[in-house]
């Protein structure tokens, strides 16, 4: 019973983080901040949801498979965020704040 409650708490908080990252993906001002939001969704919310599911299924083969999925997600999603940002920097996109400072300097 307690395990069930904890697992549902984990899953619900994971959903909360997923929704947060989706909102951030639409609302944040520039590309880099959006990647940051998506990265949170990929790592934290996926981890919470998978942990909740693991508690739900108990110590079985399913849990081990879920653990592998979690491992894969934690391994790939930060690296892919990193590479996306790197590609953006390489193709000449500046972060929002840098551009703002530049325009401020021009106006001064």
């Amino acid at each position, binding site marked *: 019973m307690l395990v069930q409650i904890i697992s549902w708490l984990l899953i619900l908080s994971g959903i909360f983080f997923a929704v947060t990252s989706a909102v951030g993906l639409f609302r944040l001002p520039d590309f880099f901040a959006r990647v940051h939001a998506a990265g949170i969704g990929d790592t934290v919310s996926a981890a919470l949801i998978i942990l909740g599911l693991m508690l739900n299924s108990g110590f079985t083969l399913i849990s081990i498979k879920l653990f592998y999925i979690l491992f894969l997600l934690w*391994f*790939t999603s930060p*690296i892919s965020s*990193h*590479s996306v940002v*790197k590609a953006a920097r390489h*193709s*000449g996109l500046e972060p929002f704040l840098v551009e703002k400072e530049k325009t401020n300097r021009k106006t001064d």
Partner: protein
Amino acid sequence: MLAITALAVIRMRSLFAVVILFGIYSLLTAVLFVVLDAVDVAFTEAAVGAGISIVLMLGTLLIAGRRADADTHTPLLPLFIVVITGAVLVWGTFDMPHFADPQDPAHQHVAPRYIYDSLAEIGIPNMVTSVLASYRGFDTFGELIVVFTALVGVMALLGIPERRQSRRQVSEKTGPEFSGPILTIGASWMIPFIVLFALYVQFHGDFGPGGGFQAGVIFCSAFVLYALIFGIELTYKTVRPKLLILTSASGVLLYAGTGFVSIILDGNFLDYNVLSNTPKAGQHLGIFLVELGVGITVASVLILIFFSIVQSRKRRYQMQPDNHLDSQVRE
């Protein structure tokens, strides 16, 4: 969802977004196949549609440019024709049996034999593999030849990828130094697992979803990742294009050779029963060889197509080195 994505694909002008939407479309289709319990097809759709074809389309965009030209014709006549055709097709479906009707001719003809007898006749649990590689082996052979012909077509258009003979070392713009430690270490951890997974899919196709086509695509994706992170020169050193041309043909030959061996052993073309002492062992051996041929050909064909696209891009880049960066930034 599928309809919304398709409409978005039609309305968009930015081809880059269209390609990404195609990936989403394929992923949704794969989910739909999973819901319909067609796991093998879903696997193929996810690997081919959402995976490698997106990479190849993005590569094509690098050669062809990112924006679509403006329409020069009015959409009325095509719309009229499409509406008429669609209406005729919908009218035709009224005569078709209902969805999942057991009296459906499609479920009466050969399907019961596949479902009830394939375990006794072929001896492998995954029906899809036994239909694909044994009952319908000739069709699959045709598909493999289509894949091979696609490679020949691409190489005829874009040129045969060749390793440069110059002594020039790994260029600074694409080598591992450019990618940085995070990407290189991450990729060098990922690639062995991708290859291992590809081999698992290849040899586990008898028991679960999988087989040569999917395995070939996954195998190719490992090389694409390597090329993206470590640069194309190092990839050419890892697998030589000449070797790949050889293997892509030899996979088709392996498939056809299995068929001819069964002819020599007094069977029909691709009749695996005669390959070994007992029919079941023969089927196992035949399906194994055939799937191996499919996997080898698909993997090497896809890697070669990727190489051709990269090389043709490079050739353009070398012809007009100044315009390249400007046009990128402007886009």
